[in-house]
C-alpha cells in the first residue's frame, strides 16, 4: 500500500508505487467523464482553494472542474487580483486563504519552490500546479496516463522532448516520472536551452540539437511550447526555430511508426508543431486534456476525501519537510 500522500509538490520525491497508485486511481475518473450526470457528492462540503499566482487558463479550469465534479466548492485566487499587485507577500496571501479554512490549496506560482514554501507553513495539503521552472506534477501524471493507455505501458520507452527544455517544468516532471520507469530520454532544442546538467537527471538522458537525430527510434515525442514570456529577448528568431525544430509530418516519420505525439498545451499551430501532426492520428493532445481532468479528480480525491476526522490521520502534516 503506497505511503499516504500529504502534499503533491513534486514527482521527484514520489516512489514508483505512489505514481502507479495515482494513475490507477485515475481510471474510474476517466470512465466518469463519460457519464450522463457528471456530479459526485464525494467532496461535498469540502473547499478547494485555487491559488494561481501565475496566469493559467487550462490548468486552473481543469482543477476547478475536477473539484466541482467531485462536489467540492472552490475559492478562486487569480493572478490579476489586486492584493498581489498591492505588494502582499506570498506567505500572507497563503495565510489569508488558509484562514478561510479550505481543505487543500492548489497552487501555481512563477517562483520555483513556492509550493514547498507554502506547504511548510500550512497544515492543509498543498498541490503544486506548477512552480517556476521546477515541476508540474499533474501534467507528468496525465502524460504518463496517456502514454500508458495508448501504448499499454510507460516502461522502458524512448522519449524525445523537443523545445525550451531549460525553462520547462513539464520537461523536468516528465524526466522524473518516466525515468522512474526505465525510460530513456533525448532532449532536443537549441543548444542554449539544453544545459549539460540535465544529463545528471537520469541514467539515460542525452541531448541533441538536431531534431532528425533526436527523433530516431522515439516511442513518444513530447513537443513543448516556445515560451516567449520567459525570455527577455527572443534568443532565436522564430523563423529559425520553425526551420530547425518544428515537428513536421516528414520529421515525425523518423520516429517509430506508432510513436505518440504529446503537447502540454497551449500549442501554437505552425510554430513548434505542424497542424497536420497536431491533428493527425498519432497526436494525443486532446486525450491529454481529458486525462488531465481524471488525474486531477484522482489527486483531489486522494488528498482531500479521507482522513479529516480519522483518529490517526494528520497531526503535524509537514514535520518531515
Amino acid at each position, binding site marked *: 500500500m503506497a505511503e499516504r500522500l500529504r502534499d503533491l509538490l513534486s514527482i521527484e520525491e514520489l516512489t514508483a508505487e505512489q505514481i502507479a497508485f495515482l494513475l490507477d486511481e485515475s*481510471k474510474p475518473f476517466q470512465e466518469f467523464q463519460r457519464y450522463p*450526470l457528471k456530479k*459526485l457528492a*464525494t467532496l461535498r462540503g469540502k473547499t478547494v482553494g485555487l491559488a494561481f499566482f501565475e496566469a493559467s487558463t487550462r490548468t486552473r479550469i481543469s482543477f476547478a472542474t475536477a473539484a466541482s465534479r467531485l462536489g467540492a466548492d472552490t475559492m478562486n485566487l487569480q493572478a490579476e487580483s489586486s492584493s498581489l499587485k498591492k505588494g502582499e507577500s506570498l506567505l500572507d496571501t497563503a495565510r489569508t486563504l488558509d484562514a478561510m479554512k479550505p481543505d487543500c490549496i492548489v497552487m501555481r506560482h512563477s517562483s520555483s519552490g513556492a509550493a514547498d514554501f507554502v506547504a511548510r507553513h500550512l497544515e492543509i495539503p498543498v498541490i503544486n500546479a506548477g512552480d517556476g521552472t521546477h515541476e508540474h506534477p499533474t501534467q507528468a501524471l496525465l502524460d504518463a496516463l496517456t502514454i500508458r493507455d495508448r501504448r499499454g505501458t510507460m516502461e522502458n520507452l524512448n522519449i524525445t522532448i523537443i523545445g525550451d527544455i531549460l525553462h520547462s517544468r513539464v520537461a523536468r516532471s516528465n524526466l522524473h516520472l518516466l525515468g522512474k520507469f526505465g525510460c530513456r530520454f533525448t532532449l532536443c532544442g537549441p543548444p542554449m536551452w539544453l544545459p549539460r546538467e540535465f544529463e545528471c537527471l537520469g541514467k539515460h538522458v542525452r541531448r541533441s540539437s538536431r531534431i532528425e537525430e533526436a527523433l530516431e527510434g522515439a516511442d513518444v515525442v513530447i513537443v513543448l511550447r516556445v515560451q516567449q514570456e520567459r525570455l527577455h529577448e527572443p534568443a532565436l528568431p522564430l523563423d529559425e526555430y520553425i526551420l530547425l525544430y518544428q515537428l513536421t509530418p516528414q520529421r515525425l516519420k523518423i520516429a517509430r511508426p506508432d510513436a505518440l505525439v504529446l503537447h502540454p498545451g497551449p500549442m501554437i499551430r505552425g510554430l513548434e508543431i505542424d497542424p497536420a501532426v497536431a491533428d493527425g492520428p498519432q497526436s494525443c493532445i486532446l486525450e491529454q486534456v481529458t486525462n488531465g481532468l481524471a488525474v486531477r479528480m484522482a489527486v483531489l480525491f486522494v488528498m482531500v476525501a479521507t*482522513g479529516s476526522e480519522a483518529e490517526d490521520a494528520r497531526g503535524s502534516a509537514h514535520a518531515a519537510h
Partner: protein
Amino acid sequence: MRVVEKTQLMSATEIERTLQRLAHEIVEKSGGTANLALIGIRRRGVPLAQRIARAMHGIENLEVPVGTLDITLYRDDLSKIASQPVLHSSEIAFPMDDKDVLLVDDVLYTGRTARAAMNGLFDLGRPSRVRMVVLIDRGHRELPIEASFVGRSVQTSDREIVEVRLQETDKEERVMLVERVE
C-alpha cells in the same frame, strides 16, 4: 483488530444451493424478465451476481446482463477513514433507464452500502425498479433499507462480523461468523 472464528454459517454446498434458490425466486417474483439486470456491489457482490446470472440462464435460458459497481465514491464515511481507499472502475455496459435492477451483495448490515450503491445507480440513469439480493441479512439496519431476496437471516451482535469467503475472491468457499476480541 484480532478476530476469533465462532461458527460456520454456510458451507460451499449450502452457498451454491442458496444461490440456485435465489435465482428461482427472482424469476418467480419478477413478473417479466425482459428488463432485468444484475448489478454486483464490489467486491463480493460481483461473483455472486455472476453466479446468479448463470443460474438464471440455467433455468429458462435467460440472458440477464451483469454489471459491477464500486461504491467507494458514494460512501458516507470517507472522512472517518485514515487509509487511502483504492478505487475501482464500475462497469455497467447497459443503459440504466427503465431497467429492473437487482443489486447484489454478500451481506446486508446497516444498509449504508445499499444507499451508496443506489446513489451510484441513479447517477447513471433512472431504473424502473431496484431490489436487493443478499446472501446474508445480519440485521442492525441504520437506514430504511430492505432486501427482497435473502439467502439466510442471521441474528448477530455488534461485536460479530459475518465473513463471506468465495472462491473468486478468497480462494475458499464458506460463510463464517467471527468475533472481534480486544
